[in-house]
């Protein structure tokens, strides 16, 4: 009988199991006389009934409305915990889901027929591990020899001036693409035809295919568009087709011209950047294609050692070449790291929930004694955590939606021309997959935060809970594992918080920075010239010719702009002030700098023309400015700003001193981001005042080195003008450029203020995200410590009451209660300081946007905050409450108080003191100790 009852209890509460076993025993007694037969039958029947009950239960939903109602009630009852856990979980889930979303943005299944079989091919330079796309010659060989690939084609991104019939000029982005691109995408035109192989032959008529959006916007949906001629730069093209709006292959294009690059006209390895795509042949696998091209790559390396010795071709999924990850493993590592963040946060919430659950041990033990199964109690605690994580997941989805909208708008803003926005395969909506991922993360968070504490409390500790009912103290404690988690978390907080806070503070500081000059007076534009005529294989002659053409048009543009009304200065520069990249330099004969772990000092690099300093109000402090003679690649003259002089020369005269650039990783001399090499020493020939006067980004470096602008690095035109004429000037610059030469184009014009605002928007978002994580970590650290203290007090509340009633000094009682916990927390903080300092040094934060003493403060701040968080509510809020409603619970302790009256303490105060000892959770005791 006992065995039968045990079996039945596996599937139902004890009372039901007992009654059912009784029914079965009674029924068997009616039918069978032999006791042994009855016993065996009883066990067999018990197994059957247990199976039925389990199956019936499995068919029912595991959670009912009552569970949800109780869960919501508990969330309301503990608002502090609810708020902390809610926001922390929301941030963590948002990060986790965001990390997965990045993967789906960067490596989606291409939304084309058989999209998973479309691939990209590129060469990788094994020396630098970067891609090399000057593959025009290799492309021709791949096209003719690879058998595992079909529809092998290529495209080149180009820009041309599109001259509309109404005289409007727009610099348009085009794909000079093989006809294979249309075959791969499997799209049919809504008018006319697509590009065909015959269009790529030399001498074929220049033709153009346009997208539907372009057809409507630029050509007014002209029904007679097919056959209409269009000026693209200096060349007249005939429109032969209109593609549907959803078609944007290869990236986000709306204009397509035939791919006509002739390898015979370029030296090997000197062609323009070419992007190659293909489809895996029917029956061919990606591995087979990789193997085939690897063999071909080895052969080409031997056949053309000068150009291909270090190049190895590789085949990757089509969208991979657009993702800025060298290795997809990096992305997985990032995702794992983010999920770990979620786990850490969920564990922290679990500590908090556990601490709360500890205070409910009596309730849980009582329910268990009344017949509630362990599953029932665990389910209810899981639902409580689930309600929390579900709400957090909703907030996380809201955060993601806002972030996605911002990312899309920023990407669109950065897309030159912005004709069609982000790549066609990127979907920034909250897809079902993202929602599913978010739900999955919420379940993981709920499982960690709800189930682990529940299992802990309902396990062998139930007995302790029952005992606590009698003793009115908590029989449960935070074990070594939980304590280690709290200490570890304090260590992590101390390690990460200073760095994150520094970054967040500095980003916030610059998110609303004023450039210190009238940035709305500057119109900036980047421009280009169509490469005509085609270069010869030697390249050099044509390059000189191209440069000559470009420089003459540039000079003419400047001359005409300077004579425009309202224009006060025109200058060329490589990049805009405030956006210069960092480089490392050493001073010739300057010797090593003490304490510098990496060689060289950071400066900001730019190339400017002779007018730059005047245009940006940078006055000359010493030496000379740039002259026309400096505008050549071999020039060694540089001009530095006052910050440079102050930092490296202590304000002393630097003219004639020489600087050298520290080479980047890999062989060869230092290379600037403008693509030029900086091999030798450069002499300081002049000093100018700081421009801009204030920094605009969190980049801590403000020492600047200016090199003379050469024809090879022309990038940006800046026109200083009357701000009210910005819109008119934007169009005027385009008109003047086209009037000089239809092939001379202005790609994009913007007021400098807009550029800065965009940068600041990025800074602001970055700062907000960092601040969110930082705050989350800080709050959780406080929560973890609060949990530790709360459980400690909860366990010892009776002792606290007795000691207080016997006249113990509050300070000594506090020290006794919190001493060990504070030691542990101090250990955690000390453990975290070392990696924090290393992190700050590695990221060059020390001495940068914040000072060293500020960093020291940031080390101390988390611990202070957490301790304060722990003590304040207990002292302030609960102190007053302990005198009234819960006094009766403390009758036993109050008796002790009467037995051992405290000297100099009024009866009401004694009652208040001892009454607090029975306060649930023990917080009241501390409160009373504090107010006494």
């Amino acid at each position, binding site marked *: 009988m006992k065995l039968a009852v045990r079996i039945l209890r596996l599937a139902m509460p004890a009372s*039901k199991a*007992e*009654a059912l076993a009784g*029914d079965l025993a009674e029924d068997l007694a009616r039918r069978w006389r032999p006791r042994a037969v009855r016993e065996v039958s009883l066990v067999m029947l018990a197994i059957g009934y247990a199976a039925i009950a389990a199956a019936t239960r499995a068919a029912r939903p595991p959670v009912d409305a009552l569970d949800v109602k109780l869960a919501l009630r508990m969330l309301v009852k503990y608002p502090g915990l609810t708020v902390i856990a809610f926001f922390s979980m929301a941030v963590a889930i948002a990060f986790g889901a965001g990390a997965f979303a990045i993967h789906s943005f960067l490596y989606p299944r291409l939304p084309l027929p058989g999209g998973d079989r479309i691939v990209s091919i590129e060469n990788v330079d094994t020396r630098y591990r970067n891609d090399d796309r000057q593959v025009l010659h290799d492309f021709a060989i791949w096209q003719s020899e690879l058998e595992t690939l079909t529809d092998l084609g290529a495209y080149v991104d180009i820009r041309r001036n599109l001259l509309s019939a109404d005289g409007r000029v727009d610099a348009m982005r085009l794909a000079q693409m093989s006809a294979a691109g249309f075959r791969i995408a499997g799209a049919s035109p809504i008018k006319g035809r697509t590009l065909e192989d015959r269009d790529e032959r030399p001498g074929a008529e220049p033709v153009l295919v346009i997208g539907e959006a372009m057809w409507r916007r630029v050509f007014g949906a002209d029904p007679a568009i097919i056959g209409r001629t269009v000026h693209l730069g200096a060349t007249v093209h005939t429109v032969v087709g209109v593609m549907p709006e959803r078609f944007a292959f290869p990236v986000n294009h709306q204009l397509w011209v035939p791919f006509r690059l002739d390898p015979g006209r370029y030296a090997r390895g000197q062609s323009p950047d070419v992007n190659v795509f293909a489809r895996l042949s029917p029956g061919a696998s990606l591995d087979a294609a990789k193997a085939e091209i690897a063999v071909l790559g080895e052969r080409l390396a031997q056949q053309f050692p000068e150009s291909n010795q270090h190049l190895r071709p590789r085949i990757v999924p089509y969208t991979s070449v657009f993702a800025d990850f060298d290795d997809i493993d990096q992305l997985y590592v990032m995702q794992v790291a983010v999920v770990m963040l979620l786990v850490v946060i969920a564990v922290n919430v679990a500590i908090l929930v556990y601490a709360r659950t500890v205070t409910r041990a009596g309730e849980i033990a009582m329910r268990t004694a009344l017949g509630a199964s362990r599953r029932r109690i665990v389910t209810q605690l899981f639902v409580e955590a689930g309600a929390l994580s579900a709400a957090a997941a909703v907030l996380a989805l809201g955060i993601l939606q806002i972030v996605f909208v911002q990312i899309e708008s920023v990407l669109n803003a950065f897309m030159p021309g912005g004709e069609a926005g982000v790549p066609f395969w990127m979907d920034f909506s909250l897809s079902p997959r993202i929602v599913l991922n978010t739900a999955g993360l919420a379940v993981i968070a709920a499982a960690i935060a709800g189930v682990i504490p529940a299992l802990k409390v309902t396990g062998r500790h139930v007995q302790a809970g029952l005992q606590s009912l009698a003793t009115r103290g908590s029989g449960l404690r935070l074990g070594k594992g939980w304590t280690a988690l709290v200490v570890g978390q304090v260590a992590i907080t101390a390690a990460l918080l200073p760095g994150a806070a520094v970054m967040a503070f500095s980003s916030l500081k610059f998110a609303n920075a004023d450039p210190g000059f009238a940035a709305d007076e500057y119109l900036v534009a980047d421009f280009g010239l169509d490469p005509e005529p085609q270069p010869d294989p030697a390249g050099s002659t044509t390059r000189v010719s191209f440069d000559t053409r470009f420089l003459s048009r540039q000079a003419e543009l400047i001359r005409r702009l300077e004579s425009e009304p309202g224009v006060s200065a025109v200058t060329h520069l490589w990049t805009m002030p405030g956006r210069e990249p960092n480089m490392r330099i050493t001073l010739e004969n300057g010797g090593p700098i003490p304490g510098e772990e990496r060689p060289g000092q950071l400066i900001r690099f730019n190339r400017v023309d002779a007018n730059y300093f005047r245009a940006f109000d940078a006055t000359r402090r010493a030496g000379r400015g740039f002259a026309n003679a400096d505008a050549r690649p071999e020039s060694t003259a540089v001009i530095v700003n006052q910050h440079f002089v102050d930092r490296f020369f202590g304000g002393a005269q630097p003219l004639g001193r020489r600087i050298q650039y520290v080479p980047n990783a890999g062989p060869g001399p230092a290379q600037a981001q403008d693509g030029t090499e900086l091999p030798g020493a450069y002499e300081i020939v002049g000093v100018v005042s700081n421009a801009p006067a204030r920094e605009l980004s969190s980049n801590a470096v403000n020492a600047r080195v200016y090199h003379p602008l050469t024809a090879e690095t022309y990038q940006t035109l800046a026109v200083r003008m009357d701000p009210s004429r910005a819109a008119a000037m934007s169009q005027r610059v385009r008109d003047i450029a086209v009037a000089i030469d239809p092939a001379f184009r202005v790609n994009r014009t913007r007021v400098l203020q807009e550029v800065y605002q965009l940068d600041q928007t990025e800074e602001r978002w970055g700062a907000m995200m960092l601040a969110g994580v930082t705050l989350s970590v800080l709050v959780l650290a406080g929560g973890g410590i609060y949990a530790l203290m709360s459980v400690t007090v909860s366990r010892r509340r009776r002792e606290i009451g007795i000691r207080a009633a016997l006249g113990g000094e509050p300070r000594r009682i506090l020290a006794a209660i919190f001493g060990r916990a504070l030691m542990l927390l101090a250990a955690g903080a000390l453990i975290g300081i070392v990696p924090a300092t290393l992190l700050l040094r590695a990221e060059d934060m020390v001495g940068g946007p914040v000072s060293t003493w500020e960093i020291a403060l940031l080390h101390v701040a988390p611990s202070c905050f957490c301790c304060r968080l722990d003590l304040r509510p207990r002292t302030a809020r609960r102190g007053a409450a302990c005198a009234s409603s819960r006094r009766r619970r403390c009758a036993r302790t109050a008796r002790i108080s009467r037995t051992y009256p405290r000297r100099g303490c009024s009866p009401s105060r004694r009652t208040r003191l001892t009454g607090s000892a029975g306060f649930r959770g023990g917080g009241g005791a501390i409160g009373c100790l504090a107010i006494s």
Partner: protein
Amino acid sequence: MTGRSPLSGPLLAEFELIVLLAVLQVGDEAYPLAIRDAIEQRTGRRTSRAAIFITLERLEEKGFVTSRYGDPTPVRGGRAKRLFTPTAAGLAAVKRSVAMVSSMTAGLQALLRKS
């Protein structure tokens, strides 16, 4: 405007109705074995313990019956009986189900007698 039908509300499945009627028939001592005996006596239909057990569980879940524990008896190995009592909702459900059958059989008596 149509009023609320007197038959609206949850109805009982056939075996649920039989079990609930048996609970009413047995009265205060309605525990599974007594209920099974009552059904067998009145309908001549053999019924398994498991069916009774599952149905009673379901009726309790739906709120049509409540259970309490009686005194232990030696023949049951000292285990208490689990005694079932219909709730007001259970009685209402029985009324609805019976009324539904009556309503559907109204006018068919002659036909039903013949067959």
